[in-house]
């Protein structure tokens, strides 16, 4: 009896085992801090590379649209305007479409397997690389919409947005392809937040005699609003940073125009186009533009996360 007790008592961990444990823990700690290092590294590197251009042009860079490597004059207004306009307008189209689709998936208009198929189709759309969507946009979408743009210009040309003669690639096509890319994001996040609304809210609403859509508009959508808003902001961040499909279809022109039917520019398409061949102070100016893009998307992203944290799980 005595012997057995000592057997249990004396079992201690070897020093080497303790050390391995400690090393393992600290390795994982170091690996997880790598995320922070990369994030700060990106911000610092892009900032310092843009310093030369920043000190020369200051904030004027943001409001002038001269971009002339020969005269060494740089201003990114056209690109910044293009980034904001394409992302905001595409979001404006995507929100009703995406939320409508999410409602279709979460309500029981049709049998469950049909809804599941629609849901996974939309999610598979997110898996298609954007360069492939760009290829498709160039060869299929652009010819398809050509007549429509001519019509648009003919009848709505008095609106500044449609005031130029449509010729090939333009900002409106970029907006349309962005809608295709944002739809899966908005739809899947809206679907998740609609699914999280408790069933009792719906039953209570039906119980006092509200119709299905009265329930959706007055009970379910308001309850899911914060989640949907966060999804919309994430989609906005994605839209601003989206590069390939937009670069391939927007026309890449630094001439400022109010019209969506003329070729435009976004910050990311400017980077994609010029970075490989740039030298001298053009590189610094491109880094400046990249810095602006990064700040824009960081602000949107952080705001989205704050929104999720602040308003999630109310019910």
């Amino acid at each position, binding site marked *: 009896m005595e012997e057995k007790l000592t057997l249990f008592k004396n079992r201690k*961990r070897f020093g080497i085992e303790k050390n*391995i*444990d400690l090393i393992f*823990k600290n390795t994982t700690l170091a*690996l*997880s*801090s*790598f*995320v922070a290092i*990369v*994030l700060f*590294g*990106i911000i610092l*590197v892009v900032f310092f590379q843009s310093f030369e251009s920043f000190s020369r042009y200051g904030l004027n860079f943001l409001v002038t649209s001269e971009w002339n490597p020969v005269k060494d004059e740089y201003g990114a207004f056209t690109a910044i305007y293009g980034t904001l306009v394409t992302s905001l307008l595409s979001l404006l189209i995507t929100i*009703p*479409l*995406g939320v*409508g*689709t999410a*409602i*279709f998936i979460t309500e029981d*208009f049709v049998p469950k397997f049909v809804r599941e198929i*629609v849901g996974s189709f*939309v999610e598979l759309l997110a*898996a*298609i*690389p954007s360069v*492939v*969507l760009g*290829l*498709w946009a160039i*060869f*299929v979408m652009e010819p398809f919409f050509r007549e429509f743009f001519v019509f648009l210009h003919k009848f709505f040309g008095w609106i500044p947005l449609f005031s130029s003669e449509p010729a090939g690639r333009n900002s409106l096509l970029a907006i349309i392809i962005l809608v*295709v890319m944002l739809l899966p994001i908005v739809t899947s996040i809206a679907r998740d937040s609609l699914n999280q609304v408790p069933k009792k809210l719906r039953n209570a609403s039906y119980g006092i005699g509200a*119709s*299905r*859509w009265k329930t959706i508009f007055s009970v379910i959508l308001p309850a899911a609003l914060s989640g949907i808003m966060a999804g919309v902001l*994430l989609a906005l*961040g*994605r839209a*601003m*940073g*989206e*590069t*390939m499909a937009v670069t*391939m279809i927007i026309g890449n022109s630094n001439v400022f125009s109010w019209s969506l039917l003329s070729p435009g520019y976004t910050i*990311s398409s400017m*980077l*994609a186009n010029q*970075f490989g061949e740039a030298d001298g102070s053009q*590189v610094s100016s491109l880094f400046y533009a*990249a810095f602006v*893009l*990064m700040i824009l*998307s*960081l602000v949107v*992203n*952080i705001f*989205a*996360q704050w929104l999720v944290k602040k308003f999630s799980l109310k019910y």
Partner: protein
Amino acid sequence: MIMNSLYYQKKLSRNVGDKFFTSLSVFCALIAILPLIFVVTYILIKGGAQITPELFTLEPNPPGDDLDAGGINPALIGTLVITTIASIIAIPVGVGGGIYLAEYSNGGPFSKFIRFGVNVLAGVPSIIAGVFIYALIVSTKILFGSMYSGFAGGMALSILMLPTVIKTTDEGLKLVPNELRYASLGIGASMYTTILKITLPTAFRSIATGVVLGIARAAGETAPLIFTALFSYYYIVGFEDLFYEMGSLAVLIYNFALEPYDAQNKLAWAASFILVISILTVNIFSRIFAAFTEKTKRV
């Protein structure tokens, strides 16, 4: 007459409104699935028609020479090489970081900050990752004096993969029931034995699914590669080719879609066919796999 109010009345404004909004929502769903159907159909038809055995073995010809565009072998191998490099960097770092977040951290400010950082990094535009690597590696020629290289491209892609890998590891490990950990620690196993022998194997399936989806996503990324790995028309023959310009399917599609020549455009469609089919296959299979594991877990 009063009994009528018990029956469904078609013309009541609430019923008309309901019908209207229901059809609107069906319409939205139809529009939402149209792009996928159109894109996939066009790629199957236009890209599928270009698939020949030579496509997989030949180098692409420089545009403008002749009507024969050649094949996409260097780009295909390049995509595999660059994605492999990215995985070799991102998977150990991501899984390790995820282990710390899920197993060691106790919800303190550090882990909160790292989780926040993961989400922010996931939202950084992909072209910024390319810009960062360009400044860090390409313009400084830090890698044995080489500028544009497949290695730099792989590093840029790994930045994009990292948040996905950490997130799936973190979430996968959190799903492992605590009883397993208690049991393992209770019989005297140390923390790292518990993690390596018990929790990681239990969460392996969900982590693997997430990582594979992350790799598939990275394989189609173009923006970080156009000025880190650039493009190459030549076969990849040896290890030292890692430190020179390297082609990839995604950049090939971008470059050749913008060429005015029909032969190059066709090559871009063929490359899209291969890229999309492999990405969709991986996605569909991992989806089925995930659904299958969910079912077996419940039993």
